[in-house]
């Protein structure tokens, strides 16, 4: 049992931290105020990270998640899931919005990495892929999406409206979820890689949001948009439940990644708050028994304990994925815990730091706005609890609605 940061990933973590510190933090407030403005500073960073990715397992974004098989010699693997989680937590310690808009590190990239075949992997190797699932009438219930992709010759013809597409304007491809046969239910839902500029696809608008303003959130319209058949990810067959399950499996990989984002922003708030209190004379140094320390100290310890629990749950979920062990429940546990804990910590730190927390001179108020989305996207708190509860209680979605 060894629950420390793997030695081989320490350089990656340090590098990601430097990026967060030197690249993200200085421009954090700037792009919070200038919503929808493209953070040019990140182009250079993206090239740098492409280089890092080519180095093998080391990756700091969500681009290279892979489900691994169990190691044949029974040994333990620390791979791309773990390194991604560790790296991204550091980047989001810097700024969640900016981390979400690093070119070529989108969630769509994870989907491609997870289910694409060799040819597709090659074809979309250098792309920046956004993910388009949600529709105006279909949020958490992703099986009820109404976008269609009807086969027609060598193409699928896409129709529908997708909202909340992170980096939907900036990315150069979008992974779109649509049904190839609306009469066949959820089994017919497939994902398609649609390249920007494909006729019939257009940007409808960009959202104005509570937080993560550096990251653009697009509404995309597809009208008779023809997508080549080879851009379908996974199997084209409309199987029973299994087909949709395969698509949903992507989430087992990406939920720990979002959990990691929450860890980053949560730690940012907690560290800053501790520093401000230290300057003011309250040093939370784990001395003194829990019921004898000041209320502020006790609150800081409680939050740190919760954050540490969230962190280890997240690392565990990634470790399971790296070692080919099913982690659906554990991924949802991590996401549920990290999402709510980060949101709670960032909000409470505003309280604790009083006007220093609430005014724009510090980033605390920003972090408390940014964190909210982390308990919502990639499955809300409630959806995570459903996943966990169904697994624990051995219930189907029919029984436990």
């Amino acid at each position, binding site marked *: *049992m*060894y*629950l*420390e*940061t*793997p*030695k*081989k990933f320490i350089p990656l973590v340090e590098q990601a931290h430097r990026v967060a510190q030197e690249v993200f933090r200085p421009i954090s407030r700037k792009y919070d105020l200038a919503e929808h403005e493209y953070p040019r500073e990140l182009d250079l960073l993206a090239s740098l990270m492409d280089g890092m990715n080519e180095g093998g397992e080391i990756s700091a974004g969500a681009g290279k998640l892979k489900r691994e098989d169990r190691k044949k010699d029974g040994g*333990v*693997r*620390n791979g791309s899931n*773990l390194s991604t989680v560790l790296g991204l937590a550091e980047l989001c310690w810097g700024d969640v919005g900016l981390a979400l808009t690093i070119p070529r590190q989108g969630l769509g990239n994870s989907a491609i990495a997870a289910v694409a075949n060799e040819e597709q992997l090659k074809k979309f190797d250098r792309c920046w892929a956004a993910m388009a699932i949600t529709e105006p009438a279909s949020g958490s219930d992703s099986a009820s999406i109404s976008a269609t992709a009807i086969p027609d010759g060598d193409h699928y013809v896409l129709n529908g409206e997708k909202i909340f597409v992170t980096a939907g304007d900036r990315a150069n491809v979008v992974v779109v979820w649509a049904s190839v046969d609306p009469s066949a239910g959820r089994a017919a839902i497939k994902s398609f890689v649609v390249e920007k500029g494909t006729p019939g696809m257009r940007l409808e608008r960009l959202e104005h949001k509570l937080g993560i303003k550096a990251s653009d959130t697009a509404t995309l319209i597809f009208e008779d948009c023809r997508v080549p058949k080879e851009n379908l990810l996974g199997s084209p067959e409309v199987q029973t439940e299994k087909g949709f399950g395969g698509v949903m499996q992507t989430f087992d990989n990406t939920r720990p990644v979002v959990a990691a984002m929450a860890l980053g922003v949560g730690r940012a708030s907690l560290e800053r708050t501790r520093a401000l209190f230290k300057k003011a004379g309250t040093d939370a140094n*784990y001395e*003194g*028994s*829990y*019921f*004898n320390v000041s209320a502020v100290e006790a609150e800081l*310890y*409680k939050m*740190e*304990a*919760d954050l*540490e*629990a*969230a962190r*280890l*749950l997240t*690392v*565990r979920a990634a*470790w399971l994925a790296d070692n080919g062990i099913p982690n659906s429940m*554990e991924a949802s*546990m991590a996401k*549920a*815990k990290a999402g709510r804990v980060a949101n709670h910590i960032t909000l409470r730190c505003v309280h604790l730091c009083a006007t220093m927390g609430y005014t724009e001179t510090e980033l605390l108020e920003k972090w408390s706005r940014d964190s909210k989305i982390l308990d919502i996207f990639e499955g809300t708190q*409630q959806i995570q*609890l*459903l996943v*966990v*509860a*169904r697994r*624990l*209680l*051995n*219930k189907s979605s029919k*029984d*436990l*609605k």
Partner: protein
Amino acid sequence: MSFDPIAQGLSLLNRFAGAEWVHKYGVYDTAQKVAYNGSREGFKVAAAVARQFKAVKKLASPSRLPTADRAAGLFDLSLTDEQSMVRDMAQRFSREIVREAAEASEKECKAPEDFAESFAELGLAQFAVPESLGGAAAESWEVTQALVCEDMAHGDMGLAVAALTPVGVANALARWGSADQQARYLPEFAGDNPPAATVAVNERAPAFDPFALKTRATVGGDGYLINGEKTMVPLIDGAELFLVAAELVGSGPVLFLLEAGTEGLSLELEATMGARAGRFGTLKLDNVQVPQSALLGEEVGAVDYKEFIDRSHLAWAGLAVGTCQAVLDYVKEYCNERVAFGEPISHRQAVAFMIANIAIELEGMRLLLWRAASRAEAGKDFHREAYLAHVLCLEKGMEIGTNGVQLLGGHGFTKEHPVERWYRDLMAIGVMHGGPLL
């Protein structure tokens, strides 16, 4: 004071009801009443026991367990073969012996007669005793112990305390004992009949702080003079050896090894809300005069007292995790079977989400415990990790305890189900210092 007929009448009625109760449920409860309420008759002397501690062989220097750094530098949650084996054994013991005895033991506030003996048969304490002193310990084993704490408490927290507290004393001796102290006591722990040994830290004070002890030791005679009172000491009346925390005036907190029969020691049973099979009580130290050799480590500064407290907090965190696991296992089954409004109540999100949250918080507690224990085992600093594990386990332990009862509704409030027992047990985490320690 004027005579109040109503109060008098109520008091009479109350006594009568009490008598009826005893009558109805028989001698068993009578015994309990006598043992517990009757114990208020006062302190009794901590009688000397038959066992004579003496060194069979001499050690030139204290024998310390080497750290167990198994890290290939990779994050790894898997257990070693040895850990899995011990865990398997502990789980079986917990299922077949501990859980079976849980209900009766808590009523009697005592483990069954042969309990210590059957636990000794597992040979766990041998892992605390270095090979040079007849044990089987080759290296530090905090992770294994954390797992054992979990598994034993899954059976019953009180019995886990009864079983593991003596092992804790052996751990303290292995870690901080002088060569002579190790030679005198440790071989006994590796034998067939390990001594009942206990750890006394708590004192009667609101927001008790284990770093601000009122029990005082002063340098005097050829050693120390100790005065004070310790509460919630496990295994109070059977203990043959007490490890007692006291403030050495001018130096800070230290630990003393006191054998039962030492003059000036007296004890009293003390009923607790839960973990009752731990058989808690108060230990009074009235002008206890001990030689220098009674100071653990025999030198001031030999014991890292903060680490000692951390190690006990980790053991309690383990007990919390095991008990919470028992709650989770129980409510899962109950809520899947209990039907209301025409279907199992687990089909309702209000119920199912509570269970999901129990599982999520429990896994978090467990991982914090494991991280702290694995750092301890590898010889790394683990104070922060132990502190946070303790905070999380006491907060979430209480939450899981109360939700466990809530999920069974009125049934949870009765003694027909064990959830009310776990509710009471889990409150001990935030109260206890000392007792078992890794």
